[in-house]
């Protein structure tokens, strides 16, 4: 029972404060600060407890948003975390990293600022950790069944935790030296400090989940053999095949894929050495350089924030599309997740954004390194084709060019072949309605099955697939929740 008039008495949205730009770009700590308790409760009280909570639908996890908004309003964080954990294994991950499609779907957002759902979510889990309410929940009985989860990103971890708690014995394989997948080295420290992952891993270990790092399945061990040793295998290997930029000069030194660059930033942030597997010619820092980032998505923004913390000379971010509209347009009505002009924390911190910019060539500095980027202005037509604006060609100085053009499915890796998996045209591993790949007993979750998507989808997939795996293992209908189906998609026109 929410306060029915809360949204009228508190008309404005108030988010968590961000640390001042000049301060925060000098370190790698998180940008956001905790919000004042009274403000938080007031903000949570703006929730209208809708008859049809669109937020709850907008969230792939099906987070019980009105429920815990009200519990937060009433200050019952103990019960709030119960309700939050009911649908979400890792609310601190989503609280920090999710772009909050729930808020786009918030009914209040029709004609007012949406409720600060994400802030509430993060605040609940913060308090839970502070109060030691997050405890391991080991199963009461073990089934004797074993599961290998390959990949320790959010999808793999969610599946692993669900299956462990259901009584199955789960081993998580990770090729990297630390757990967390993209969250570990793809997400900059200033967005989520890595201690949050470690804390969760400890909880999972206490529940009985086993972790095997630096095992590259398919390389270090034959994937099929490994699979045979388990009653089920869950692939959560991500969709890390980057889209390429097909222009002259792509091979120049100083032209990196975002995923080649970001892990290095994170190592730096944590005071760790750049891993030995990074080739010499890819080891970079933006310090003192003119940097151009191609791609205006979240990855581009992550690059931007990381670059800015390395004291560059200049940063420019290029987008091929036009400047997004400030507000929703007719073809992306409420409650869909709209493409609008967004200013992330990184954008606040510096750099220039250039729209309708198409790169034509990367210019050699004469020593095999990049010196500049040539671009033209383009016009996008309704059929999504582009034409070049005549005479618009110009050159940007660039000693570092970062490519953040998106991903095209599962990385090329031996495992796929070893397991005989079918891969779709979109690069994702093909699966059926029960999350199962073309290889019986092998399941696929997260970006590997869906294509690159949001962390909240990854966790939702991990949870849902766990239910299917549980059924596969026990031969009975599972009592585990299944928030999404393998082919579910967000609401669009």
């Amino acid at each position: 029972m929410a306060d029915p008039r809360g949204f009228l008495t508190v008309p404005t949205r108030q988010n968590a404060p961000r640390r001042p730009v000049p301060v925060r770009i000098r370190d790698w700590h998180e940008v956001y600060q905790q919000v004042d308790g009274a403000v938080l409760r007031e903000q949570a009280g703006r929730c209208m407890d809708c008859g049809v909570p669109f937020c709850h639908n907008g969230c792939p996890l099906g987070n019980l948003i009105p429920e815990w908004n009200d519990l937060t309003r009433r200050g019952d964080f103990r019960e709030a975390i119960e309700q939050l954990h009911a649908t979400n294994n890792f609310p601190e991950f989503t609280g920090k990293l999710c772009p909050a499609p729930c808020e786009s779907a918030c009914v209040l957002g029709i004609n007012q600022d949406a409720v600060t759902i994400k802030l509430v979510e993060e605040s609940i889990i913060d308090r839970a950790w502070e109060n030691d309410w997050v405890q391991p929940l080991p199963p009461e009985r073990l089934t004797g069944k074993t599961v290998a989860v390959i990949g320790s990103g959010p999808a793999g971890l969610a599946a692993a935790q669900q299956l462990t708690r259901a009584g199955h014995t789960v081993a998580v394989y990770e090729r990297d030296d630390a757990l967390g997948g993209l969250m570990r080295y793809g997400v900059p420290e200033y967005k989520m400090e890595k201690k949050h992952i470690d804390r969760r891993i400890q909880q999972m270990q206490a529940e009985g989940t086993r972790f095997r790092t630096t095992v590259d399945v398919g390389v270090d061990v034959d994937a099929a053999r490994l699979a045979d040793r388990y009653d089920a295998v869950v692939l959560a290997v991500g969709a890390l095949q980057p889209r390429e930029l097909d222009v002259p000069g792509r091979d120049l030194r100083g032209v990196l894929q975002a995923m080649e660059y970001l892990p290095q930033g994170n190592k730096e942030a944590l005071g760790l050495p750049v891993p030995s597997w990074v080739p010499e010619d890819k080891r970079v820092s933006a310090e003192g350089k003119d940097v151009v980032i191609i791609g205006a998505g979240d990855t581009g923004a992550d690059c931007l924030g990381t670059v800015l913390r390395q004291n560059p000379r200049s940063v420019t971010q290029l987008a091929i599309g036009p400047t997004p509209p400030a507000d929703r347009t007719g073809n992306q009505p409420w409650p869909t997740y709209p493409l609008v002009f967004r200013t992330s924390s990184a954008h606040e911190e510096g750099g220039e954004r250039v729209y309708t910019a198409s790169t034509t060539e990367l210019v050699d500095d004469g020593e095999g390194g990049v010196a500049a980027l040539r671009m033209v202005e383009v016009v996008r037509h309704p059929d999504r084709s582009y034409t070049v604006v005549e005479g618009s060609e110009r050159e940007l100085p660039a000693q570092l060019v970062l490519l953040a053009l998106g991903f095209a499915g599962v990385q090329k890796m031996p495992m796929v072949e070893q397991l005989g998996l079918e891969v779709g045209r979109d690069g994702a591993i093909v699966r059926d309605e029960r999350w199962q790949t073309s290889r019986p007993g092998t399941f696929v979750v997260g970006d590997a099955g869906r294509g690159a998507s949001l962390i909240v989808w990854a966790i939702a997939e991990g949870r849902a697939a766990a239910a299917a795996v549980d059924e596969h293992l026990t031969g009975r209908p599972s009592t585990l929740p299944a928030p999404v189906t393998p082919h579910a998609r967000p609401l669009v026109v």
Partner: protein
Amino acid sequence: MAPDQRTSRALARFSAQPEAQGLYDPSAEKDACGVAFVAHLHSGPTHEVVQQALTALRNLDHRGAVGAEVDSGDGAGILMQVPDAFLRETWKDAGLGELPAPGRYAVGLGFLPDDDEEEAVAKAEIAATAAEEGLRVLGWREVPVTASLVGQTARSCMPRFRHLVVTGAGMREGVEGLELDRLAFVLRKRAERELDVYFASLSSRTLVYKGMLTTGQLEPFFPDLSDHRIATQLAIVHSRFSTNTFPSWPLAHPFRYIAHNGEINTVRGNRNWMRARESQLATDLIDGDLSRLFPICTPGASDSASFDEVLELLHLTGRSLPHAVLMMIPEAWENHAQMDAARRAFYAFHASFMEAWDGPAAVTFTDGRLIGAVLDRNGLRPSRYWVTDDGLVVLASEVGVLDIAPERVVSKGRLQPGRMLLIDTGAPSVGGEPASPGRIIPDDEVKGQLAAEHPYQEWVEAGIIKLEDLPEREHVLHTHASVTRRQQAFGYTEEELRLILAPMAANGAEPVGSMGTDTPIAVLSERPRLLFDYFTQLFAQVTNPPLDAIREEVVTSLGVEMGPEHNALTASAEHCRQLRLPFPVVDNDELAKITHLDADGEGTGFATVRVRGLYRVAGGGEELERRLLEICAEVSAAIDGGARFVLLSDRDGDAVWAPIPSLLLTSAVHHHLLREKTRTQVGLVVEAGDVREVHHVALLIGFGAACVNPYLAMESVEDLTRHGLLEGSDPQQCVRNLIYALGKGVLKVMSKMGISTVASYRGAQVFEAIGLSQELVDRWFTGTTSQLGGVGLDVVAAEVAARHARAYPVEGTAPAHRRLDVGGEYQWKREGEPHLFDPETVFRLQHATRARRYDVFQQYTSRVDEQSERLMTLRGLFAFKEAAATGRQPVPLDEVEPVSEIVKRFSTGAMSYGSISAEAHETLAVAMNRLGAKSNTGEGGEDVERLLDPERRSAIKQIASGRFGVTSAYLTHATDLQIKMAQGAKPGEGGQLPGPKVYPNIAKTRHATPGVGLISPPPHHDIYSIEDLAQLIHDLKNANPAARIHTKLVSEVGVGTVAAGVAKAHSDVVLVSGHDGGTGAAPLTSLKHAGAPWELGLAETQQTLLLNGLRDRVSVQVDGALKTGRDVVVAALLGAEEYGFSTAPLVVSGCIMMRVCQLDTCPVGVATQNPVLRERFTGKPEFVVTFFEYLAEEVREHLAALGFRSLDEAVGQVGSLDVRRAVDHWKASGLDLSPVLADVEVADGASRRQLVSQDHGLEKALDHQLIAASRAAFDSGERVSATFAVRNVNRTVGTMLGHEVTKRFGPDGAPDGTIDLTLVGSAGQSFGAFLPAGVTLRLVGDANDYVGKGLSGGRVVVRPHESAPFLRDAADNVVAGNTVGYGATSGEVFLSGRVGERFAVRNSGASIVVEGTGDHACEYMTGGTVVVLGETGRNLGAGMSGGRAFVLDLEPEKLNGAAVRSGELVSSPVAPGSAEAELLSSLLARHAEETGSAVATALLSEGETALERFTALVPRDFARVTALREQAAAEGNDPDGEGVWLQIMEAVRG
């Protein structure tokens, strides 16, 4: 029907009622009627009395009805004294010899088979049976009849009519009177059971003639009645209005002792209890085994017949007829503080072995010497009487049924609720009573004598144990973990804790929600549902009214007696040795008291046996059944062992033992004991963990429980006070609140059913089942209707097991962080029940209509229609047959009628301006007007500027119980007029617009005061029966002869029968609403658990109308969550020709199903009056137009595929519907939908849709003469006056005239004094209804009910004739009937005399002066002024929220107690010189001037001092607001401005 029930063969033999077929079930048939008696105090038997009675009957013709054939009546009859002289002579004339002395022979009109051989057999058998019973048949006389008079259908089952005469034989030679009647009774009972004969009566004292006749046919049909030798001193006549057109000769009234106008709502329970009592019945007065008379209540007979049968038994076994009547229809004694203690004890004593037969009733009764009449406790039937100077007493449903010169009438009275009119005619000795002078026995004398017959008071005080007197016991507290586990086992959801339990515990009231339910019914749900969910509450509509348990609480009672009963035919101290509970829901401590009753050393001797209602869950349905049988045996053994209370408990379950659903447990034991006839030896107490809603408690009591202990609900609440939602609250108070809310909620449920007391409600089974198999219902819920069959015990057990598994997981671990199921029944949740309106459908519908995307619209409809993955609706189980399969050809799309034609069939639903914003309301209206379709005002009236604007007005004007803004102008400017009998979301309930939503603009439209809350009563106070509805239809037709009249009903079992009655009442349109209709506010219990899907109601309506031959005269409209073109076509095929939509067009206008309409916080400006939020409204008429066009386009596509060129072609073509194949659903696969698709055979050429118009009979209206006489006023505005005679058959006088005035002069009427008409005589009902300004009607004589109903500025004056002997005491005589001035908005009424119940109810602006009123005066009044110059009844000012009442010599205890206690109603003396005093004086003067009133004249002569005798009644909030507004106006501020509004809000919120 149980196998041991012996049915009456005669009932079937002489009836053309069809067998049950499709959804039609003859047991749903209802009737209502007009009734009258004539008695002479000292004349001796005369033929004149017969003639007077027949005349009275003919003048009640409009209260009866005719069927499809005008010459087949619904039934008419007469009950008189045995006309000895006449019989004696005709007997001799027929060559049958000499009759014995008067009183020594019993005579009766027998209905015999129309077949020589069968007749002979019957006569022989009767002779043999008579011999066995100590009687001798003296002979049979052929009673002449004029068979040619009656219609073909009535003749098809017409019996032969014979007078049978029997006399005592052998040992019984010479018995007479009552003693002979006992023998005749046994003979009659046996004959009817065993043979094809029926006796209208068989008595030495009385004789009945009756048949399937119209009132006018009775006498010519039975020429005996015209014979001047036939004579009596008293007679009862009755004219029947049945809801069907099927003749049934035995069902005509009168019965053997009574004629009844009304309906017994508790009859199913009463019959069950009577059967249970049979084993204990014993009497010395009837020889031999009584079981040859059982069942006392003949199966298949009507409620009235059952009443008569029980009354007869009670009377013949030693009680006087008045005594027996008071046992069965006690007055409202339970909460009557002023009642004499002895009389109270009399009622309390009898209540311990006879529950009231509850429901609207005017019962006239006679034993041949005494004749009398009573009303039900609510006074829901009119009854008026006149006494003449020569001792004639005429009582009838209406005054004026006999022409009696005014100077001869010495008094005019009316029956009052709970009062008995009793006349001892002092008739000559039959059965030993000496002849004596006739007289009227005063009510006090009758009851005083009866109460003194036994030391009832002593018996009651010694016998009845009060719960509160028992010692306290220790309270047990349960741990959180234990509570949670059991919550899981009983399927609790987080939502239930949040939305049901917490609000009840916090507020002590049921939670309220809004919009309609759009989740699947239990049998279609994929999830395990509680057995409770398969039952839906039946509710009173049309044939009887729902009650108002809040405003009229004085007539209700929640108290119950429980414990063993004794022989109902005797009386002793032991009879009332019972436990009395003040409330039907008990907490744990009270339960402990009950179970320890004997152990406490109180010496009660009441042993309680606890029965474990658990079964081994692993055994499934078989084990469940085995265990139920075992439990029944345990209970039987316990009773044999002396148990007097049985505690059915589902506590103590564990991993192996799961709870049996408490409803199944209770009903199984209840029906087992009924069958064993040991039911009345024990009280059933139910301790149930699954109970947490009002509906649950209501069901348990409705199926036999005496009281319910919802232990887990209480423990849950206690738990919530320790952790969670109610943390920090006082646990004890919270539990008390919960219990109060549950108990009060039961009262509300009962009142929807028209039942006043729990004692009568217990076991009454006023529910239907949807989705339970016939076998399950017959076995465990005997007598309950389940139209579609459904699941059996195996599924019930599977549902239990699924819940149980949550608490006790079979293997492994329960999922983490998941304590209880999330719910999702009330709000959409991902993991909960699916809703038709979910995020996707809302989004797609809005986007499709805003962006004009037909492709997106189709995505929306396919998500609603496509139910292969998840079942949502019954219609989802249907499939369309392709054209070829029905012998049709698909039609090219362009040959199907265009969108523009189809949209004309569409209307938007009744959403009041008040519940939704002006913007939303007008958007719909503008869209519908553009389309040529219709929008509906809802019940909030319509602003004059919109009323007259063809673009913005609503074509359909609704008339609901609140009558807000229902004026002559409102009615005149309508295309259709809709009477809302019920609303799908909350059938049987009224509504409430809370003060903060009554913004100034709303107040203006509703003729109300800003900031002051408005109540719509549960019933229309002018519709307590079908004939009342006919009257209102007639009123509205007069108010606008061009408009079609709709009657809106809600789907429930039997709605088809009601619809047939409505068609016979001349409604032009019958609207059947689904249970899923929306609302701005309704208790959640009602939203979810009352009413049935429209598919059922519509199909039943179509089938019943066709069977009755009534379909062609009425249009059928359907509404209730219609969303797609497919829905429309399914509805068409099932029989609807018009379609209503509400929620969907609201969603198109921006509604996003917040379900907070009741809170005024709608964030999209749809359901709010808050100006800030209204600005956020984004709907446009274009969107709504697009929606309906798209919908029509889909309809066209479906029609084309089905092979129809128009909707008309498709209406009623059920052959095009099929049941979807291969429905693989664990529950729904047991459903049998064939009854819905049953195709009723119709005669060649009979239409399946409306083709002809109703005959409203307006051409006979007196108003044509009034209009003609007023011609000069219309032509030139001249003043006119004239005088006419008027009779009771002249109904609705002045209304058509008023309509012409409104048309001619505009909404404000004509200048005062333009038309001034005088009428002399007794006016029929609705005199001066909706009379506009400029018209004065002066009635010299008296009037019936509804005088000045809806008065719209006109003036009505009623005063007695100058020659009336009682003129000086006019104030003591009744001058008009019930419900005077109902819904009046302005104008004046002056009544010189008293009036009946519910005077000035819902008056919002008229000034009315009267000289005495019945109960419930000024109820719900919101404005205007009332002056009462005499006595008032009880419950004055209930729900009154505005206006002023001045009462002379007020007795404060007559005021509504709750209103006085809460301070809502303030009474104060009239201050001399005040504005009030001035107002009162001027009204007194006007009254004296207009009526010549003796009392007003006397008061005026006393001057100022007279005013001191008056008390002014003013509602508190009204006074505050009025003062603020007057002050603002005085200061030059806008009283409707923002500033004043804020002050008002502050004032009324305190």
